[in-house]
């Protein structure tokens, strides 16, 4: 066990930072805000934490706190600028924001280390602290998915007019999405640089957006559990695929494409459907109504992959 932990430490750390990065894109998405600004905040957070540690020799918590605060404020400002945009337009604006951050780091001279980036970021940050932060974030995000907050968030996303008529301020929710996304992105970036000790312009490019988005789409975009599933899969998959050898990239591409095409609600969605289906089967077996008896005989046996079957039950999914 300890051996496994030691030899896969980097992947375990990457799972945590990848998860929080994924959440920084998923949280706004759940509020109907198609924003990738989390990836840019990741870059800002990483560089800011690195600069603070190298130049001011601050402790890990100060670096993380400062990075999160800064990225939350930047998120708010960005939100104020572009919260009126929608759909793919908003997505493109935030992608542009992310890429501009990358260009700034290349041109930042001494402060950002140019194309080399920054290295030697060594602090007292421990794995225990990393796990603790990850769990706290997960718990907070999970809380926002249930109860009153959860219902309001769903309303803001699915039916903005209804939400308005219920007296929910769309503007406030959307701005909150930007702030939370910023803070989460900043946290992920800061934690990453503290465990990896180096950050460069190549680490915060377009690939980061793709990674975060792939995690939540394949894992499941409506629940933090989906983000967890996605983060685990896409952090460990490349490592597992190494066994295949030279065609690993190809297999990776095929897996992403298949998941995007055939699992519209992600793996988590499939699991939920599967669970629901099993429960119904069990209930029916206990007390089979006449109509379902035929189904049990195998006539209209719904396949777990057939998600349309359950699409109508979507809103009851927690």
């Amino acid at each position, binding site marked *: 066990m300890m*051996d496994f932990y*030691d*030899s*896969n*430490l*980097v*992947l375990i750390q*990457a799972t945590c930072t990848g998860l929080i990065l994924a959440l920084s894109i998923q949280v706004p998405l759940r509020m109907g805000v198609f924003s990738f600004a989390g990836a840019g905040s990741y870059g800002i957070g990483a560089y800011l934490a690195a600069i603070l540690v*190298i*130049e001011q020799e601050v402790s890990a918590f100060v670096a993380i706190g400062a990075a999160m605060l800064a990225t939350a404020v930047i998120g708010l400002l960005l939100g104020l600028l572009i919260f009126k945009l929608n759909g793919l337009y908003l997505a493109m604006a935030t992608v542009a924001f992310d890429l501009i951050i990358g260009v700034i780091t*290349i041109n930042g001279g*001494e402060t950002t*280390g*140019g*194309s*080399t*980036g920054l*290295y*030697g970021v*060594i602090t007292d940050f421990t794995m225990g602290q990393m796990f603790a932060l990850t769990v706290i974030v997960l718990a907070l995000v999970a809380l926002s998915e249930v109860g009153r907050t959860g219902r309001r968030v769903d309303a803001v996303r699915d039916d903005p007019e209804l939400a308005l008529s219920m007296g929910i301020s769309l503007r406030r929710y959307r701005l909150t999405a930007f702030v939370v996304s910023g803070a989460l992105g900043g946290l992920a970036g800061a934690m990453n640089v503290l465990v*990896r*000790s*180096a950050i*460069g312009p*190549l*680490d915060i490019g377009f690939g980061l957006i793709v990674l975060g988005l792939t995690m939540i789409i394949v894992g499941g975009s409506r629940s933090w559990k989906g983000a967890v599933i996605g983060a685990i899969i896409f952090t460990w998959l*490349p*490592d597992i695929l*190494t066994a295949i050898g*030279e065609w*690993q*990239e190809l297999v990776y591409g095929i897996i992403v494409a298949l998941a995007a095409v055939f699992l519209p609600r992600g793996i988590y969605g499939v699991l939920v459907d599967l669970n629901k289906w099993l429960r119904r089967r069990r209930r029916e077996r206990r007390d089979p109504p006449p109509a379902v008896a035929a189904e049990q005989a195998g006539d209209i046996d719904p396949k777990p992959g057939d998600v349309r079957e359950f699409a109508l039950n979507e809103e009851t999914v927690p």
Partner: protein
Amino acid sequence: MIWNARRGGRRKIAVAAIATGVLLSVAACGGSDAPASGEGLPDEIKLVSVNPTTGVVAFAGASANKGYELAVKEINESDLLGGSKIKLEFKDTKSEPQTAASALTSAITDRDVAAVFGSVSSTEAVAMSPLAQKRGMPIIYTQAGSDGVVVGDYTYRATPLMSSYYPIISRFIKEQGYKSVGVMYTSVTPTLQEIGQKTYPQLAKELGFEITKSIATSATTQDFAAPISQLLASKPDVVATLQVGASNPTVMTQLRQAGYQGKVLGNSGASAGNLKPAGKAGDGMVWPVDFNYQQNAESSQKFVAAYRAEYGEVPLNYAAEAYDAAYFLARSMAAADSTDREAIKDAMKEEAAKTFDGALGKDLKWENGTLQVPGVMVEYTTEGEKLLYEGAGE
């Protein structure tokens, strides 16, 4: 101290910080990472090469691995390690820093692994070095010419920094009688940026030529027509262009299309078949490099012959560097008479104080953990690379 003096004080602090981190971690775990150290070498010594064999820098990683493989084969057939055999494993980084760091971590955890050959890519190397230094894993890189790679006594780089041998181009500039140079460089890699921003202005001062124009290009620049026409409008005697491998054929093609027929001062990124798509337009590009298979040194020719016999082709500089890295490690392990990582580290330090003859040339020496090499000057022609002169002859 090229790698340190460049960025001044803050870099030193960074290096010092890593060193402190090492002390702390050593104090904390009491060297528990070290493999059971008995006297003498075990029958089988496990080494790992963490290099990209897929992805954007695959061509360099794959070539380096051939060099390692050849050296290991020779060492195993020789008596250098007193009958012990090296078993070399290859881990593909996929040109991703995270995969590289991860592969290194598993190597560190595996107590049987005595040392690691680090990645050719700077971005991967920068991600690996702090780990290796902190947890006491001897690691030898090739290429990886950025700051933050050689960070302490566990980290070595068996490739000279380009800026250290690039000045041998002076002789070419003097011989050709160039009085002015137009420079176009990419800001993507630190190495090439440094040559464009620092080395050329310095050469200009020393040799008394004029830099008519200096243009930086970016990572997404694919069409160089506009900067080239600007460059030529400044009427330089010769054009210097410092681009990553894949951009070189385009720059050469477009320079020729723009009516420039003279020589082009380039960099070794143009080798490894990168110029081939340019066809005839690639002729006349010259560059300094740390190794060319035609160079004279006896030890280099011995390597070239062995490489030809093994692979049926001539070696690239990446293979030569890796070959020397493997021998350096083998000599250190023989001197340490142990595969204990700390013992290897100490032996490497002793070994690096000596000069040696290797694939890269004669009387090579180490400076601050980085190999120093006189370098050679080559010219590209469609038929192959032509050796112009050797820095060793200066």
